[in-house]
């Protein structure tokens, strides 16, 4: 390989190491950005929606108890409001489904809520207060607990997801910085190796030639330098050796 290509290969190698490390770090930081976005847009929202649904459920249960006490107008108003709040929370949770696990839990919430809603709508058709209380504890309250349990399951799953994504961020940050660290260390070692080669194969032979020519000028000693490579430096050494032998021949003649 000629001199120019050898030097170029050194710089090319160095540049390649740094470019790949840089590109990879950028990719991973972009990935970290996406993860943070996911935490904010999906996991945090999902937790919020679950909390909203739990609040709505508690209000619905209070409204049912109010209706059992005979306060029908206030109970109906609270029930309507709480129902729309729950449905809103459920729809938002449905619209941002990403994981299959979440989809199953949301379907479970939806089904349990439908049964619960049917139950408290059925309460209005029952007349004597004793029947109402019996029916509430036998059916509606159990259905309420079922919905609550499935919403809490959704909340727990979202919290676990949030924790897992956040703890993955540490690993991702490590993956993003590691190529940079390795590239810096590799570049330092590589630079040391490159400078050794430049010194050994380019600078040292030039110094040798210079010293030999100086010696020749001073004492007329013939120049005989050995080349350690197969490039332009080696050709230069051959030429100097040849020139010196020609001069020596001429002067002896």
């Amino acid at each position: 390989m000629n001199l120019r290509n050898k030097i170029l290969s050194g710089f090319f190698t160095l540049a390649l190491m740094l470019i790949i490390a840089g590109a990879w770090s950028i990719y991973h930081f972009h990935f970290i950005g996406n993860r943070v976005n996911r935490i904010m847009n999906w996991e945090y929202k999902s937790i919020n929606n679950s909390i909203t649904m739990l609040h709505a459920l508690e209000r619905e249960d209070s409204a049912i108890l109010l209706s059992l006490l005979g306060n029908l107008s206030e109970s109906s108003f609270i029930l309507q409001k709480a129902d729309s709040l729950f449905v809103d929370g459920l729809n938002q949770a449905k619209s941002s489904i990403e994981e299959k696990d979440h989809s199953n839990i949301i379907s479970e919430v939806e089904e349990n809520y439908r049964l619960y809603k049917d139950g408290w709508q059925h309460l209005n058709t029952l007349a004597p207060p004793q029947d109402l209380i019996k029916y509430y504890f036998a059916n509606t309250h159990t259905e309420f607990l079922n919905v609550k349990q499935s919403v809490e399951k959704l909340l727990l799953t979202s919290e676990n997801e949030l924790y897992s994504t956040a703890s993955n961020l540490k690993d991702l940050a490590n993956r993003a910085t590691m190529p940079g660290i390795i590239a810096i260390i590799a570049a330092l070692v590589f630079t040391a190796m490159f400078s050794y080669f430049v010194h050994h194969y380019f600078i040292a032979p030039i110094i040798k030639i210079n010293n030999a020519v100086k010696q020749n000028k001073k004492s007329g000693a013939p120049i005989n330098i050995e080349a350690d490579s197969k490039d332009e430096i080696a050709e230069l050494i051959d030429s100097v050796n040849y020139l010196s032998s020609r001069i020596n021949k001429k002067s002896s003649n």
Partner: protein
Amino acid sequence: MRPQIILWYTGLVLVLNSAFLLVSSIVSLINFDTALFPLAYSTIIVFLFGIFPLIFVTPTKEMSNKEGLVILIMGWLLSCLLGTIPYMLWGGEFSFTNAWFESVSGFTTTGSSILTNIEALPKGLLFWRASTHWIGGMGIIVFVLAILPTMGLAGMTLYRSEVSHLTMEKLSYNTKKAVKVLISVYLGLTVVETILLIIGGMSIFDSVTHSFATIATGGFSVKNNSLAAYNNLYFDIVIIVFMVIAGIHFGLIYKTFTNRFRSVEKSGVVKYYLVILFIGVLLTTIYNRISGPYENIWTSLRYSTFQIVSIGTSTGFANANSNIWSPVAKVLIVFFTFQCACAGSTSGGIKVDRIVLFGKTIVKKTRQLLHPHALIPVKLDGSEITPNALEMSVLYVSLYIFIVFLSTLFLSMTGVGPTEAFTGSAAAMGNVGPGLGAVGSLGNYSTIPAFGKWILTGTMLLGRLEIFGFIIFLSRSTWKN
């Protein structure tokens, strides 16, 4: 000492490593796993480091012994060091210390792991882990010599540095032929074992990685519970057979397959190796049945055979928990951890050849006490052993035990329990892998403190490079011009 020549040959070692990294990247790409970028980047870095000296330096045909030795040690150290890159880039349980431990354990074919959940690793990384065994098993320099177009004196010097005197004894060929014999036996055994495991129903990936680990007598499995995870008698039998074969001198295996079966039959060393393994298995089976965990003699035979052969060949696979075995079985495990298999194989430890020589030296010295003026020759497989070789063997055994003691002492200082410190050190020095206690057959080295892991990796390298080479490498005179 010419640094450019050392750089040229270590460059070749790194190019070879990058080829295996490339294959691991392809495995990762096929499985589309998370190790693709770490492996691809490592391939590029290692390749660039390797190819750069090859561009600049004009190779030489001559090399001094010192240069050969430095190339050997540098080749091993750089392979282990650059082998950590994919682990560190992937992250997970891999800190630098853990990555270094896993890499050294892989290249030296020790097979100890710091991983608590091996199955969490992507397939590409698992393949690289198994590849480190396969590269290290045969010896990095032997692979380099195999890909060199011409050998010359430099090749011979390198061959002498990598291949021990005991190994060369039974390889009566020229260097090129000897390298060819070693590589062809190594490759052939790996291919045959892989095919047999696939026939038995093991997946292709698991078969290849387990064959790499068996023939290299390494012990890295792709399962958390090693071979116990499969609970398959056929796999156990295939692996037992190949572990035993991988523990025999490759030169003898080659001769066996070239119609000279008598070579193996005649070899006293192989006879001793097989007989001592048989006795070990027999005693372990009996004691594990009488005072161990097994209620059935066949169950005891199955697990005892696998585990004793695994330790006795320095492989380190496990199909049972040896921590619950009888005390006699545990003592036998410790014995085999020290002895291991024959020279010229991929096995570690003191080696059967040296144990035989050690025994013969004791007999010779005892006889000489009775007949002080008698000339008593010591022969091994028909050839007379020189007093110098005998002295070296005895010295090696003494030094080996002393290093195990030192490593045990240093490990104890880091707070490691005596059982784990002693058996862990012996297993590291013999490149065996599992010890007893927390570092037992189904355990791992994750609980060892960071400093302890560095001590163990130093011990592994000393064991793999057979002590003297490392001492010469570290001595001042090697580095004097």
